[in-house]
């Protein structure tokens, strides 16, 4: 099944949220909407409840670091609809010192995924009930998946024999 520009995922969503959608990409049969940060919560709420879309399942949230580009980060939401069997990807661009609204009130499963993005990239989700590190120790310095974070270790109390920090 190929997804064209007339698909409900593209046309219907664009008609409803035209000015909030900055770009729409269809690549390899996957639809991606690049949306404005302010309208994230509104669009997500709509996508979940609209009878034609019914995106009731949040598959994943991924952070991407485009350092040294501006704005630096992109947060990617993978949505799935169990009743309608379709997928949609939302992207939001975030600056390093900006916060992004949390979607935990819409999908409870976003809790850990947002914590992971915070842990790995330092992206702050506003309104998250318990935003703290999930994989790394709480006193860890730095955000490992950022592009300017070194691949090999440096000296600290966890890695006393590592290389010097550059």
């Amino acid at each position, binding site marked *: 099944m190929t997804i064209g520009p007339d698909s409900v995922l593209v046309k219907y969503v664009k008609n409803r949220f035209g000015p909030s959608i900055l770009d729409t990409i269809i*690549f*390899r049969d996957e639809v991606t909407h690049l949306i404005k940060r302010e309208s994230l919560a509104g669009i997500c709420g709509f996508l979940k409840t609209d009878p034609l879309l019914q995106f009731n399942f949040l*598959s994943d949230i991924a952070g991407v670091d485009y350092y040294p580009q501006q704005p630096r980060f992109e947060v990617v939401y*993978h949505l799935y609809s*169990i009743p309608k069997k379709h997928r949609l*990807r939302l992207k939001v661009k975030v600056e390093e010192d900006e916060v992004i609204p949390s979607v935990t009130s819409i999908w*409870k499963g976003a809790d850990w995924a947002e914590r992971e993005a915070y842990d790995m990239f330092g992206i702050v989700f506003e309104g998250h009930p318990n935003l703290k590190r999930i994989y790394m120790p709480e006193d860890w310095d730095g955000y490992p998946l950022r592009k300017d974070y070194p691949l090999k270790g440096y000296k600290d109390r966890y890695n006393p024999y590592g290389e010097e920090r550059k």
Partner: protein
Amino acid sequence: MSNNEEIATKAITLSMGPQHPSTHGVLHLLLDIKGEKILRANPDIGYLHRGTEKIAENLLYHQFVPYTDRLDYMCAMSNNLAYVLAVEKLLGIEITERAKYIRVIAAELSRISGHLLCIGAWALDLGAMTVLLYAFREREMALDLFEMLCGARMTHNYLRVGGVRYDILPSFKGKCLEFVNLLPQRINDYEQLLTENRVWLKRNKGVGAISAEDAINLGLSGPNLRGAGVKWDIRKDEPYLVYDRLDFDVPTGESGDCYDRYTVRIEEMRQAAKIIKQALEQIPDGRPCVDLPDVVPPPRMEIETNMEALIHHFKLVSHGFKVPKGDAYASVESPKGELGFYIVSDGSERPFRLKIRAPSFVNLQAIDPLCRKGYLADVIAVISSLDPVFGEADK
């Protein structure tokens, strides 16, 4: 103490794990308990974090396949599959029919071996050791089949971008058929030990129940979601490989408790055996890899006899292949749930960003709602029934 004085029970916090035989790996649970009642279960994970996603950004596409083996090490073939599907989606290549069938057989065998371990360890945790020994007996047969496929038992590295690494041996078909014919009888044996067992029922029925709506909202997938009555299986709803040509059922539960998750897994093993049987019958002749010299190195025999093939192989192994710019997400129904790989490519030989949607990680979020208001002993049943694997949850 006089008779009319009440015994005060203070709420305390109990640390369960990370070294605990029933937490299936390095799960650290902080349990707020009052007497034996659980007030709150707070999972603390990350003890096995190895930075797999960071590693991936610094490897060539084909070099990352062995790392996926070490995610869910109980069923490595499914992990290989999800990763190579994502890369193939980005490349836009279609693999050969034979490779598709071999992949289905490999993935379903790994589902059987994963579920066998889940049921065995679960029964062991709840005091039925026999089932573990039986389950390992059959798991051993599945591992022998993996050894026939690729020479490895646990970390296979069998699937490659563009197909599978080796064609199946002529003797594999018979051996595999023997196993899938035997398995349903052996599953009957486990069921005889567990399904109607009073202790098993008491420990699992009504324990850790979750409604379908909550399960979807929390992002549960796989047998844990189907146990709650949601009929969602990626193999059926977004068929990949050749699953749309195979006849199988998707079992579901009703009440979403531990017992339903158990019955779903038992039935899934039977269905997996059925799928393998059909795949073995339908498998066509052909190449195990696509004929695409940009991605797939030449066959071993040619490398050893032909100079150009040797150079080609060397070039491909040391430099890798370029993947078009863009991003793609591919997911499969792994034994634990929806396993997805999201790859962002900048057009080079290495992924710019690779995100793993690990089902165990998402499923673990349900521990708190499932354990709340239950007893301490139920926590063991709940963890076993969620079947987390920490290679995957901690990445």
